[in-house]
């Protein structure tokens, strides 16, 4: 134990030696040796106040103090390269997934709206949005009504979620017009 204590004083100890010494601190002889070795060093360096020792008073005063229990400090060292790489790839994947979701929603609505007028009438026998009806029956309408419907498609409820797809539909409807 004394050998470990001497090495600990010089910070030349092993991990287990620190544990061993701290476990043995209830032994007054271990504490005395630690104090003696410290004092020898200070005397050799010709430092002052060699007779000063209040360790007993301090430790007695600390008896009344609640035991310190602190959460482990978060390491201030930078994260490992592997972790950094994982974080960067995760961020990229999340961004890509977001873009793909928006694209899928947009394209799904656009695709539904670009379907040709004849197929829309066949596939949707019941309720149809006003614009689709207008497109499906465009060949039966007079020209001035056809122009009116095309001009007002942007105000129909169908295109509300489609965003930019309203313009796509308007163009296709215009193309379909004679």
């Amino acid at each position, binding site marked *: 134990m004394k050998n470990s204590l001497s090495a600990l004083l010089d910070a030349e100890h092993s991990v287990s030696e620190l544990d061993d010494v701290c476990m043995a*601190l209830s032994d007054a002889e271990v504490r005395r040796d630690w104090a*003696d070795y410290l004092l020898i060093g200070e005397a050799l360096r010709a430092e002052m106040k060699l007779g*000063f020792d209040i*360790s007993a008073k301090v430790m007695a005063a600390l008896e009344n103090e609640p*035991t*310190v229990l602190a959460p482990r400090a978060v390491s201030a060292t930078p994260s490992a390269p592997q972790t950094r790489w994982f974080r960067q790839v995760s961020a990229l994947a999340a961004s890509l997934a977001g873009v793909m979701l928006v694209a899928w929603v947009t394209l799904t609505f656009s695709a539904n709206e670009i379907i040709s007028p004849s197929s829309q009438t066949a596939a949707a026998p019941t309720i149809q949005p006003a614009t689709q009806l207008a497109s499906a029956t465009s060949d039966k309408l007079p020209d001035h009504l056809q122009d009116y419907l095309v001009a007002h498609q942007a105000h129909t409820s169908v295109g509300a979620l489609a965003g930019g797809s309203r313009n796509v539909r308007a163009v296709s409807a215009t193309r379909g017009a004679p």
Partner: protein
Amino acid sequence: MSDRDLDRLLVERVQRGDKQAFGLLVSKYQRKLARLLSRMIWNAADVEDVVQESFIRAYRALPNFRNDSAFYTWLYRIGVNSAKDWLVSNRARISATSAVDIEDVENYEIGEHHRDNDTPEEVLMSKQIAATVNAAVADLPEDMRMAVSLREIDGLSYEEIAEAMNTPVGTVRSRIFRAREAIALKLRPLVNANAEKRW
């Protein structure tokens, strides 16, 4: 491992509830802190009180210590602040008994003034300890004397001493330990007089 690393390990142990580990730090730094604070506070008994207060404050604040600075630097700051508080709260007594200018306390620079404020008993004790240690070192075999001197006076690591003495590190470690034990054997009768002060 450096001295600072050792302090960090001891602090971490205290932060995990090992109160005894704090005793190692108290023993290690009490005289260093007393030497520092005796430059600010004239009376030796007052220095003792302020050093004790500093350690208690440090212990209470230890959960907030994050090892961003060395433990001693942190303790030094607590010690200086404790001394300033003490000087302010004892303004009347100090102005009546000493030449300390309380108004300058906040601007106090450590090292500006050095006071030898030890009592005659403390001075005598210091001299006796130094004489005993030096006599014990002189009686050591050459290899042990050199090893302990290179370590304690020159601050060399075991590896550096091993290189200087052309000896294995294990031998250096053993020589330093045996030297300390031989010196301590001669020192103990003297310091045992102060045994009640020791932790």
